[in-house]
């Protein structure tokens, strides 16, 4: 098969386009950690974030309602008194993807955040503090949902 130079160049461009559309090129330069947000379980999420050694800690606080009437809007507050915290995570165990939000702490803000989350069903909610050394400390609370927030 003889290809003219023009044809050859055209085909190269097509192949490059195909590769780009499959997402094989790292075109996303920003820091959004897709793996962590797509992970199903809490263990997988922590692995994607490079944290390990999950253990309970009284220094991590989670404020959540006992019963959430509307799963589409569940107010959750996480905080910690620890120093050397790299990020604070909010996770819902039985959601399709466990990770809800990840806050990168800094010296200029207190390690306390409030947010509203969607919950598909009654589940344990976790507040996880990922320390600078990669250790993960958590607090958890069960929240009962009477009306799910993930469609259906």
């Amino acid at each position: 098969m003889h290809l003219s130079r023009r044809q050859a160049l055209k085909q190269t461009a097509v192949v490059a386009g195909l590769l780009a559309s499959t997402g094989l090129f790292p075109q996303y330069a920003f820091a959004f950690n897709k793996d962590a947000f797509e992970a199903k379980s809490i263990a997988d999420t922590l692995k994607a974030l490079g944290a390990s050694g999950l253990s309970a800690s009284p220094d991590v606080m989670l404020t959540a309602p006992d019963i959430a009437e509307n799963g589409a809007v569940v107010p959750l507050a996480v905080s910690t008194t620890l120093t050397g915290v790299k990020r604070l995570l909010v996770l819902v165990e039985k959601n399709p993807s466990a990770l809800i939000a990840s806050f990168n702490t800094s010296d200029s803000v207190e390690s306390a955040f409030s947010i509203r989350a969607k919950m598909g069903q009654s589940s344990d909610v976790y507040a996880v503090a990922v320390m600078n050394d990669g250790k993960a400390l958590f607090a958890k609370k069960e929240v009962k949902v009477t009306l799910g927030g993930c469609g259906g």
Partner: protein
Amino acid sequence: MADPMRIRAQAAGDKATVRVLMAHEMESGQRKDAAGKIIPAWHIQEVTATHNGKPVLSAEWGPAVSKNPFLQFVVKGAKAGDKIGVTWKDNKGETRSDEATVS
């Protein structure tokens, strides 16, 4: 352009509590439309906050954050008259920035 955020920053002592209400659909990617097709996810991915132009907070959000998200955080060393800026960026690349003055 998305609707503006409502930001309230209140100083108490040497810190300020910032409450932000963003206007965003936050489609989870789990719901189906009337024809049974999955509605693609559309949610805020990145949130950043600044205090007088200096970045103080960055956060990554998944699709499980509620519609029209609410966020509360506390900025250390902020006093009345300081500027608090909040910016979000969603997974379609849309962004919105708003600023409020600490009272």
